[in-house]
């Protein structure tokens, strides 16, 4: 019975499970592990070659890969990446790279490299065969015209006569305007002068007053009649006086308008000179920033290269903003990335998603050999609270030059980036470097010794708008130049250079790291200006004298032409004064008072005679 039940159970279990499957699974797993073990190196080699090609768009070759399992150590021998612009050469290559990887952390989704060594890292080396190009990049380099800042100024001064005959001169325009104003104001004042009381009218007024004064006053009625007649004449005076006052007000307005215009005319030659200076770039002779003209483009290119490097690392750094995204809960568009990304949460033993604890790169370039040492290379510094340190050294830069660069930077949890660094160059021999290659001027530095130092600081700001402060000082000694100048300006500049064996350049950058404001100053400015001024100062001074003299003549002529109009105005003013005075005198005439006094005296006399008759 029990055996039947057991058989039944076994049958039931067999119905759902198969033990052979379990064995098959184990065999399959063992097979996969074995295959991975046997072909891991080949698979990694293929992954580097195909993955690298997908990233850079050109053929990537790896000679061999060695994998050591305990501890996990990956060695890549001879990696070559084809340059898309020159397929016969490598963009970069290295002889050997060794990385000690923490396998357990790798399985958990983190890449922790204890030690990374790269030997003989080289740029632009010749390939054994021409590399294939899978993606043709359109070159979008902003090939700036290197003569864009070089003034096309030819030191041929304009003809003074032609300039003075130019009808667009302000002096001429404003003089014409003055004449027009004179005409307008004269017309207005003439119209008013016609309304003024004439001399005859004033004489008639005086005669009338005189006749009123001569009228006999015998009684109070006579006096009232005299008073009424005087009031009648007085009202006529007031009407005339109003006309005079109106003319006086108009005269003040006209004088003010004319005075203003005369001031404009007097200043016009000065403005004309400024305009001529600007038009013919005469002012640039004194204010031209030669250092910026000559080195501005190159400095800008260096900063553009730094900016390209920054743009390359910025997306990697931007991944550190995971915490910010998580807070918002808004999904990020990651459709471009077909493999997704790891999102890490707070951990009991936190580690960054990517970390190289120690890195050492030996780099061989045409300019010399470099040793790059880095520690704590990551984009999530807050996990271990340690900053990335990067040091680059060379003691054979262009034969005997010494170069040293060191920097530290760290990214905070809120994506703020803080970084600083310093560099110096010593005894760097420079040979045959093109400084200016413009149509008007070609200037080549044949040889020189360069020394310099500088520092930079990127502080407190979101990745997208980090602020940069950088000061860099260069000293060029034992310099020899060669070149050719087409224009007078270029020739003077060339002479100035050839007389200089030493100068300094200071390049400062500040502002947004993507578009820093560059300021360039140099002792060259002073030297070139001094030579420049000596050569053209006399010519320029003579030109200025002639032109200003011509402009002043034009001014005098204009003022002289309007002299008659001005004298008319003065006469009119005098006339107004006379009329006003005469009317005022007539208005204030005491003829009524005199008549009143006469009446009083008569009354007194009459009273006296009556009293004497009465009292004897």
């Amino acid at each position, binding site marked *: 019975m029990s055996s039947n039940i057991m058989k039944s159970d076994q049958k039931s279990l067999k*119905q*759902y*499970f*198969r033990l052979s*499957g*379990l064995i*098959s*699974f184990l065999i*399959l*797993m063992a097979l996969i592990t074995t295959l991975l073990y046997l072909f891991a190196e080949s698979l990694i080699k293929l992954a580097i070659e195909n993955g690298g090609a997908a990233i850079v768009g050109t053929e990537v070759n790896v000679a061999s890969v060695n994998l050591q399992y305990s501890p996990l150590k990956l060695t890549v021998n001879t990696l070559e990446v084809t340059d898309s612009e020159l397929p016969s050469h490598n963009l970069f290559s290295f002889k050997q790279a060794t990385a000690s990887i923490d396998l357990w952390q790798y*399985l*958990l*989704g983190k890449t922790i490299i204890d030690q990374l060594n790269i030997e003989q890292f080289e740029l632009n080396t010749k390939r054994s065969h021409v590399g294939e190009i899978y993606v043709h990049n359109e070159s979008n380099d902003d090939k700036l015209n290197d003569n864009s800042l070089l003034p096309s100024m030819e030191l041929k001064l304009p003809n003074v006569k032609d300039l003075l005959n130019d009808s667009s001169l302000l002096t001429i325009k404003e003089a014409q305007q003055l004449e027009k104003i004179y005409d307008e104001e004269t017309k207005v004042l003439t119209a008013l002068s016609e309304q003024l009381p004439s001399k005859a009218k004033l004489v008639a007024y005086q005669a009338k007053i005189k006749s009123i004064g001569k009228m006999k006053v015998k009684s109070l009625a006579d006096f009232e009649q005299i008073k009424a007649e005087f009031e009648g004449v007085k009202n006529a005076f007031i009407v005339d006086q109003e006309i005079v006052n109106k003319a006086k007000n108009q005269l003040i307005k006209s004088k003010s308008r004319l005075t203003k215009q005369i001031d404009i005319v007097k200043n016009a030659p000065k403005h004309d000179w400024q305009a001529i200076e600007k038009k013919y770039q005469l002012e640039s002779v004194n204010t031209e920033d030669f250092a910026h003209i000559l080195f501005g483009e190159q400095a800008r290119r260096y900063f553009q290269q730094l900016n390209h490097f920054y743009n390359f690392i910025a997306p990697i750094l931007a991944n550190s903003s*995971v915490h910010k*995204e*998580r*807070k*918002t*809960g*808004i*999904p*990020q*568009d*990651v*459709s471009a*990335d*077909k*493999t*997704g*990304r*790891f*999102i*890490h*949460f*707070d*951990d*009991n033993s936190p580690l960054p998603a990517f970390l190289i604890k120690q890195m050492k790169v030996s780099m061989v370039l045409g300019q010399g050999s470099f040793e790059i040492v880095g520690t704590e290379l990551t984009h999530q510094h807050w996990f271990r609270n340690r900053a990335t340190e990067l040091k680059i050294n060379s003691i054979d830069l262009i034969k005997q030059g010494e170069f040293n660069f060191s920097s530290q930077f760290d990214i905070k949890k809120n994506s703020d980036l803080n970084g600083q660094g310093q560099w110096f160059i010593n005894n760097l021999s420079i040979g045959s470097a093109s400084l200016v290659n413009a149509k008007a001027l070609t200037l080549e530095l044949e040889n020189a010794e360069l020394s310099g130092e500088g520092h930079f600081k990127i502080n407190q700001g979101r990745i997208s708008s980090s602020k940069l402060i950088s000061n860099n000082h260069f000293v060029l000694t034992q310099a020899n130049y060669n070149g050719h100048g087409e224009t007078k300006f270029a020739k003077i500049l060339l002479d100035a250079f050839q007389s200089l064996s030493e100068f300094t350049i200071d390049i400062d950058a500040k502002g947004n790291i993507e578009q820093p404001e560059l300021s360039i100053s140099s002792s060259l400015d002073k030297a070139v200006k001094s030579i420049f001024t000596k050569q053209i100062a006399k010519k320029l001074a003579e030109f200025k004298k002639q032109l200003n003299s011509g402009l002043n003549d034009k001014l005098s002529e204009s003022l002289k032409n309007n002299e008659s109009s001005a004298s008319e105005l003065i006469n009119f003013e005098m006339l107004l004064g006379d009329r006003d005075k005469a009317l005022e005198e007539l208005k204030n005439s005491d003829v009524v008072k005199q008549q009143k006094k006469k009446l009083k005296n008569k009354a007194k006399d009459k009273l006296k005679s009556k009293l004497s008759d009465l009292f004897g």
Partner: protein
Amino acid sequence: MLTLLVKLFSVLNSESSTRQIALAIVLGFIVGLSPLFVLHNVVILFLVMFIRIHLGSFILAAGLFSGLSYLLSSMIINIGEWLLTSSNLHSLFTLLYQTTFFKLAHWHNTYTLGAFILGVSLSFPLYFFTKIIIEKYREHIMVTFEKLRIVKALKASKFYRLYEQVSGKSSYLGDA
């Protein structure tokens, strides 16, 4: 393509139970959507081999749905991204993140988690849908098809010989 079609007919016409085939297709669906080398795929592979389900259907489904996964990759990543960056689920994922299995399974990867969640959430409707479809096929279409003259003609063709060959192998793989 011809072989694939033959395999499909072979599975549908085999004597395996509809549940076994439907379950195999569902598990193949989850594996197909996910990246190949992830921990939950190993667990599913173990289940597929240990439990009596139709192996042929599983392999076929995994192959078909891995193609679909490529087409749906953006959507899968967005699902994973939305889940892992959701502020409401932050505490849950922080808790899960403390476990080694969660990290080892790469469920903190947007693609892996998105594929797994999409696969699991669609597995139940897919199971019942597949089961019904196979039953309906066997009940109506298969019988009707076999009566057709063209099918009879096909049975005499090279295609049918190939079908019979694969059918023989398939019955071995899908031994219920």
